[in-house]
């Protein structure tokens, strides 16, 4: 894989998404600020912090992969001296780096706030939730790259959003989590670690399926 070719492709996506990233980053940080206020605004803050990262996980693949294909920019990109696998790698690296910048900034701001407010117990379920959003983003991204059907792409987005609900249900059903989450100490129980392990497994399967699907392609354009 040629680094000198991949880097311009990554920078190109950063350039075009700079406004989106700024808006979501600022939105995420403001949301965390709201949680400091406590009460109903605190709940709104937690909800909108999660929403900022969920939206980022949907918007990035849509803007950088699906729209690039729909607007026939992909033809231009694929005429450059890159292989389909390099193109996919550049897309993944660009998207993951953009996502991580915002996601990590929000996550660390949240962690800093949680640890400083004697509610460290919130950190394990927040980590499960945040990692679920990351896995959902990677799933969206891989499907956007490999699958060319817009219907399937919409179905994937719907499924990943529904899956977030399953994660919340799993957290809700975790024994003693209610008590631990509002406690002063972060408890990394077996159940929490199992949930994180499952999310990691899903991530690995999605990446493997993505690489397999991309390698089997015989057409590298949408038309």
């Amino acid at each position, binding site marked *: 894989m*040629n680094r*000198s*070719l991949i880097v*311009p492709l990554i920078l*190109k996506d950063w*350039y*075009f998404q700079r406004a989106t990233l700024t808006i979501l980053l600022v939105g995420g940080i403001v949301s965390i600020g709201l949680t400091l206020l406590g009460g109903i605004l605190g709940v709104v803050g937690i909800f909108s912090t999660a929403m900022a990262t969920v939206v980022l996980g949907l918007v990035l693949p849509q803007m950088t992969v699906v729209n690039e294909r729909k*607007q*026939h*920019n992909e*033809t*231009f990109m*694929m*005429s*450059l*001296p*890159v*292989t389909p696998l*390099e193109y996919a790698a550049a897309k993944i690296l660009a998207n993951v780096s953009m996502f991580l910048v915002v996601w990590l900034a929000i996550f660390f701001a949240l962690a800093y706030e949680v640890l400083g407010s004697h509610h460290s117990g919130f950190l394990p379920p927040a980590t499960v939730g945040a990692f679920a959003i990351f896995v959902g983003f990677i799933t969206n991204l891989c499907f956007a790259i490999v699958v060319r059907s817009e219907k399937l792409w919409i179905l994937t987005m719907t499924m990943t959003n529904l899956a977030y609900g399953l994660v919340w249900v799993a957290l809700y059903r975790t024994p003693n989590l209610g008590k631990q989450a509002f406690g002063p100490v972060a408890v990394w129980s077996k159940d929490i670690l199992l949930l994180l392990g499952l999310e990691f497994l899903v991530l690995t399967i999605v990446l493997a399926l993505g690489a397999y699907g991309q390698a089997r392609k*015989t*057409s*590298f*354009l949408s*038309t």
Partner: protein
Amino acid sequence: MTNLSVKLTHVGKDYPFFSLNDVSLDIPRGSIMGFIGRNGAGKSTTIRIILGLLRQDRGEVEVLGHPMPTEQKAAKWDIGFVSEDMRLYAKATLEWHMRFIKSIYGNWDEGHARKLLKRLDLNVAQKIDGMSHGQRVKAALLLALARHPRLLLLDEPTTGLDPVARREILAEIEGVLFDGGERSVLFSSHNTLDVEKISNQVAFIDRGRIIQCGGKDAFLGQWRRLHLQVPAGKQVPALAEFVDVKQDGQEAIVITNAYRADLQGAFDEAGVILKAVESVSLEEIFLANVDRNTERSAA
């Protein structure tokens, strides 16, 4: 080193409602090949296979000495591609695109790019979405030409352009041949006038098959329209080289793809009088080929 820029050997590609079949095509170095076919004939599919954007189901493709699509990356360093349905980034300026291409290709020629900007009357500060269709095509052509590709693949670049933009684009394509004489162009179009103007090689494609291929001058030199007078009781001789025969009373018009002076003997023998011999345009040649292909398919 091979003398061919592109060599397709028995290439095929299947889709649910279309197949490219047994396409064999040689594009010599230093030539402009006009690739003519109606919409849906297989021009874009062929060009995309040459560029490595589609993997052929059958046959072999060699581009600039590289087997495709396995060595597409190496080949694409030396290929410039402009397609009617290829879009640059709407929200970025031409200047941004030039910087982007320059960051990838070490052989980007800034001086040549600036000359092309002037010749094609383009503004670097303009965003692509503010450009007309003609300006977008010219911008894409500039990005391809400013790095002196050894092979230029142009898929219907003049479709939908006004006469001035078309002339400018054709002039630039023609100019590629003066750039060292080693470069080649494959130029697809359903506009035979454009092809006739700039190409020295011609290939006709219809229903996924190459139906004729060769030097343009040879085509134009061999194809003729013959006006015959057929006296009562006489018949136009049935010769294999007669592609199309139309008769109305004692007047007949024959189109032949292998005109030669000794045809006169055949007419004398048949008692038919050759009244006039006319040149045939590339469009007529193309249409005659398509008609013949349609008849063969129906048979």
